[in-house]
């Protein structure tokens, strides 16, 4: 075997053999990927019509989802977003399958780690969404209750309740994703505890006179003139 064969021809042969081995895999991967694109677009089209037909847009408008999306800068309808999500999930699934078809160890390892992490991302998104709805609901409950109780700082009460729940949800989501596990919980505890302490101090120092007046009224019976309506 001469040097030319060893240095030039053999590598070329090996390369050619590997290319010949790889090409069918590549074409089948490409085929799966294209098929994924077609199926994804088709499913997106079908589900967009299905969600519109079952009135999901109306339902999401009532539940405040549309408001949330608009705040986040999204102009699409909820049915459109859901259909797009289904389409993209399909395309991603087909892409993953097509990449696995290539049988490249590095890509396989990467995909495996990604697939194992994906459930955490979904759970985190779910926590954030649930947190957002609960924050809105309880924030509004607190706002209405404090307005009806005649609290001048009703707006602040509503916003504080909303923010606390949202902050809790974000902390839980980050915990789920494993980002700064201990740090996030400690930071949340410090911030939340700090806010409560600040409010206690503010009320204790700033509201000393009000508290005194309130107690005096209660103990001495010098109450504000109240209505004696029987509303019913």
């Amino acid at each position, binding site marked *: 075997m001469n040097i030319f064969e060893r240095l030039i021809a053999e590598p070329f042969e090996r390369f050619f053999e590997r290319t010949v081995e790889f090409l069918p895999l590549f074409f089948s991967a490409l085929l799966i990927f294209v098929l994924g694109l077609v199926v994804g677009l088709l499913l997106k089209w079908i589900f967009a019509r299905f969600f519109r037909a079952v009135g999901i847009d109306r339902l999401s408008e009532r539940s405040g989802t549309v408001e949330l999306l608009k705040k986040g800068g999204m102009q699409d309808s909820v049915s459109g977003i859901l259909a797009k999500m289904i389409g993209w999930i399909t395309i991603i699934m087909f892409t993953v399958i097509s990449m696995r078809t290539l049988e490249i160890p590095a890509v396989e390892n990467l995909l495996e780690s990604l697939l194992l992490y994906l459930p955490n991302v979904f759970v985190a998104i779910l926590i954030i969404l649930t947190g957002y709805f609960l924050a809105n609901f309880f924030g509004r409950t607190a706002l209405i209750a404090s307005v009806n109780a005649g609290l001048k700082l009703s707006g602040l009460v509503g916003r504080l309740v909303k923010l606390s729940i949202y902050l809790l949800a974000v902390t839980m989501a980050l915990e789920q994703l494993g980002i700064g596990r201990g740090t996030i919980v400690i930071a949340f505890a410090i911030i939340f505890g700090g806010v409560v302490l600040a409010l206690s101090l503010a009320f204790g120092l700033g509201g000393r006179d009000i508290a005194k007046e309130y107690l005096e009224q209660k103990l001495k019976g010098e109450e504000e003139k109240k209505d004696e309506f029987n*509303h*019913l």
Partner: protein
Amino acid sequence: MDIVQNTTIEDFKSILLHHRVSPVFKIATPYHGIPGKGSAFRMIFQIAKALNVKACAVVDSDLRSITPEWIELLVKPVIEDDFDYVAPLYHRHKYDGTITNSIVYPLTRALYGKRVRQPIGGDFGFSGKLADYYLTKDVWDTDVAKYGIDIWMTTTAVANKFKVCQAFLGAKIHDAKDPGADLSSMLYQVVSASFELMNTYPDVWKSAKRSESITTLGFQYAVGLEPVAVNLERMIERFRLGVKELRGLWEKVLPQEVMNFLNKADALTAHDFYIPDEIWVDIIYSYALAFHSKVINREHLLKSLTPLYIGRTASFVRENWESSAPEVEDRIENLCSIFEDKKTFLAENWE
């Protein structure tokens, strides 16, 4: 019943001929069931059914002006005149019963076409047949089990064509208001029961035309009433707080012209404060439509009505500061007419 020798009212020398000495058969039982007026009434209906009674009467427990004649007035029309439901009719202070006067009476009258003046009076007479009918309804897990029971009883009787009348009972004087009773919860329960009934009987209320009087029994006489203390400034402040904080929520429910008016009313002084009848009717009908189409959570929706109701009550108090009882009644009559006139708006927008 006492029987005296034939005599006149000025003659104090009449001879007592007969006095009932035998005791009246009675069953007294405490109620230990689920808390709530409606739940307690359910037990009364069940007892009435078990005893197969011909007539039954219920009265509020905090009454100070009740006399033995009330029971007769509530029960007799059922026994002797074949009525199924006897609503009360009282003389009340002009500022008393504001939920009744500004929402429940005008709304019920406009919707179902019967002028039951005290649909949530709390003291009612009803037939055993009607008590049986009430028990067939599955409403005991809703607001009907609480303060909503009164309007539910009245509306169910009217909407299902039971024979309804009202009996004049005199003055309604009750114990001082329970300090624990939360206005917004009370308003929520009563209004939600009224709106829920609109969902139950849409065909009945859509087909009812102008309202008509119902039979009124009992001799109507003038009565003395106790004064009612009012803190107008505080009420207007509550309204303003509502405009400031709940504006965003109201915008989802109320038409733009009502919102424009509320923004203007926010700037009015206590001396000029005024919410006209037309605006108030638009508010109630818009809330009814929002409740029906579930624009937002129903409890949030109805509890956000409280500042508007307080504002309307403040306006009513200010307008009628100098008015006599009949003048106030005329104003309520005018409000009822507007409720009836604008009913087409409600029917047309009901999906």
